[in-house]
């Protein structure tokens, strides 16, 4: 893992010192809220419905056990004993007090973490495939590039006042687990005919009120040109992006309005112009960073005990069937720990659960943890012989739910239970869907299905790319939920299509139940997933299930 250099540590300490003074001036009354707001946002501090919220970056989703322990310590000392992991690999604390935030930031700096650029119109936390460095399908670990981008974008003087926020995601694998096509810039590692690694550069993707699938601006970009090319894109956007209308300010609109060809020409021209300035320092830095991300010393041991435990314990077997992913090392597995026990808040972990996860990572996981954009915690390097012990430890902490990728593994934004922008609640809808499908005992039969819920049009819950998406709105002063169908957040990114009129708060869970159980009658066999059935049949049969009364009317 990357460790802060003296420069990094001094930089973060200086920023924290500045912010402490800004908070003091705000409390003393010499800064108004209008003056203070941009300063607090630069440090990840929001003001929400019931309290402040501090959004802490977990760069490319990677944590070590000491960092996870510190997140637990902060949750206990400064918050209400839990944290919320988000769809952009951040952790949010929902109850910090303004005067204590500088202490929280110092506690984070002690473990080389910060909340810089987790808000505001800057380049945000760079996200990456949560299986990076471990996945069997990976070309190379994307995190060194993500760390290079973090260092380059942090306090980049040209990009502190962009037209709007700017999000970058990186994946080192052809199977996109980082939703790169829904980011302002997506970087997907590919190999050229000569077998060299480079990036397919995707630009102008995004969800929100105007969802757009990112477009390929460069088929193959050599790794050596990465920083200059990304800088060229952001620089062109900085010039062209609209500052007159917040809703048209993201780069997806810039690309849409100007056309990909124009943007590409301008980016290439800017790239040629600035490229000579990148004289190799960035590549030297990248080489150092790559060194820090060297794979752990994998062990060799017999996996007989693991196989025997699988045979002996059906609950363990079920968990290994759903929560494990192939590791590039045969004796190892990637463990996805569900922090979505049925009825719990998606993405929330208690301080005790964080400590258990840290301990497991220390004892069995080469000291590494990841946060996925799907709001789960990953143990990326686990030897199979240790899985029975890990499972037992997870069970004790209520962390052994075998539901990864299933109906109850729901992404949900905080919604109107916390967020000042929300138009409806999302958390209770997610809790009720998960609880209901647990009662029905059908989720393993239903198989892979991604439900994603957003509490407003800004789409933090990624509803557009959910196989089933739910969008909570305020319709004439009442919560109302629209369903979208057929979305996909992988390398085949699709924006889901709206099924029809929305459902009231007490109708949405029965509607989802109808839809999912209805799918069971539509699929050709248990192997055909919800998404495959949707692609084969189109939306009509699903709409008929959702709106039976209307269907009957049409037939009459």
């Amino acid at each position, binding site marked *: 893992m990357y460790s802060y250099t003296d420069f990094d540590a001094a930089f973060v300490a200086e920023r924290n010192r500045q912010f402490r003074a800004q908070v003091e001036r705000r409390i003393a009354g010499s800064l108004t*809220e209008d003056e203070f707001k941009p300063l607090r946002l630069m440090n990840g501090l929001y*003001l929400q*419905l*019931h309290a402040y919220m501090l959004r802490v970056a977990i760069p490319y989703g990677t944590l070590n056990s000491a960092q996870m322990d510190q997140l637990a310590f902060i949750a206990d000392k400064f918050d209400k004993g839990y944290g919320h992991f988000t769809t952009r690999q951040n952790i949010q604390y929902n109850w910090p*007090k303004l005067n204590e935030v500088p202490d929280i930031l110092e506690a984070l700096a002690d473990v080389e973490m910060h909340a810089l650029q987790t808000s505001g119109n800057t380049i945000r936390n760079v996200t990456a495939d949560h299986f990076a460095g471990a996945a069997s399908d990976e070309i190379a670990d994307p995190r060194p590039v993500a760390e290079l981008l973090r260092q380059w974008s942090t306090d980049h003087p040209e990009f502190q006042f962009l037209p709007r926020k700017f999000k970058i995601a990186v994946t080192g694998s052809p199977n996109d687990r980082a939703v790169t096509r829904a980011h302002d810039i997506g970087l997907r590692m590919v190999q050229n005919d000569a077998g060299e690694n480079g990036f397919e550069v995707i630009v102008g993707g995004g969800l929100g009120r105007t969802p757009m699938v990112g477009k390929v601006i460069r088929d193959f970009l050599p790794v050596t040109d990465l920083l200059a090319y990304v800088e060229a894109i952001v620089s062109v956007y900085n010039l062209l992006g609209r500052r007159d209308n917040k809703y048209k300010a993201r780069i997806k609109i810039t690309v849409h309005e100007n056309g990909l060809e124009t943007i590409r020409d301008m980016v290439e021209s800017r790239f040629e112009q600035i490229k000579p300035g990148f004289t190799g320092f960035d590549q030297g830095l990248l080489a150092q960073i790559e060194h820090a991300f060297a794979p752990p010393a994998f062990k060799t041991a017999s996996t007989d005990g693991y196989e025997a435990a699988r045979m002996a314990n059906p609950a363990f077997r079920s968990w290994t069937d759903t929560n494990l992913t192939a590791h590039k090392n045969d004796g190892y597995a990637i463990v996805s720990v569900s922090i979505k026990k049925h009825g719990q808040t998606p993405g929330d972990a208690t301080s005790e659960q964080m400590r258990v996860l840290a301990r497991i990572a220390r004892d069995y996981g080469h000291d590494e943890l990841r946060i996925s954009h799907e709001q789960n915690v990953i143990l990326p390097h686990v030897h199979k012989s240790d899985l029975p012990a890990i499972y037992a430890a997870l069970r004790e902490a209520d962390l052994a739910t075998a539901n990864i990728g299933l109906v109850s593994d729901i992404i949900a934004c905080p919604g*109107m*239970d916390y967020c000042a922008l929300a138009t409806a609640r999302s958390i209770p809808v997610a*809790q009720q869907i998960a609880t209901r499908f647990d009662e029905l005992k059908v989720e393993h039969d239903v198989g892979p299905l991604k439900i994603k819920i957003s509490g407003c049009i800004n789409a933090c819950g990624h509803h557009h790319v959910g196989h089933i998406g739910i969008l909570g709105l305020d319709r004439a*002063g009442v919560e109302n939920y629209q369903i979208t169908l057929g979305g996909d957040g992988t390398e085949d990114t699709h924006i889901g299509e709206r099924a029809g009129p929305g459902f009231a708060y007490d109708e949405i869970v029965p509607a989802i139940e109808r839809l999912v159980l209805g799918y069971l009658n539509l699929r050709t066999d248990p192997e055909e997933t919800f998404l495959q059935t949707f692609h084969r049949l189109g939306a009509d049969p699903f709409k008929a299930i959702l709106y039976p009364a209307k269907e009957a009317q049409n037939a009459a």
Partner: protein
Amino acid sequence: MPRAFTPKVVTANALLEGDAVWFTEDNTWTRDMAQAELLTDEAHADLRLLEASARQDEIAGPYLADAKPTNDGPAPTHFRETFRTRGPSNYNHGKQAEV
């Protein structure tokens, strides 16, 4: 035609805790919405919002929120404002846990 004025309260977030507070007749902030001043005149409401906004060292983000009179005092009319009087629905945190 401009929409008819509906009764309002001045509300904001407390500066240190960040929780919801409401402005009272005697220029203090209360954590109980029922204690707030109900504003039934538009010009008076605008004036009270200005006066509340001047109290920068006590609160952040003041605005006028719709409210209705009840026997106990002003009450919210929109679910968002109702949630602000209670707290989140997934945990017993916030005002619902304090009262």
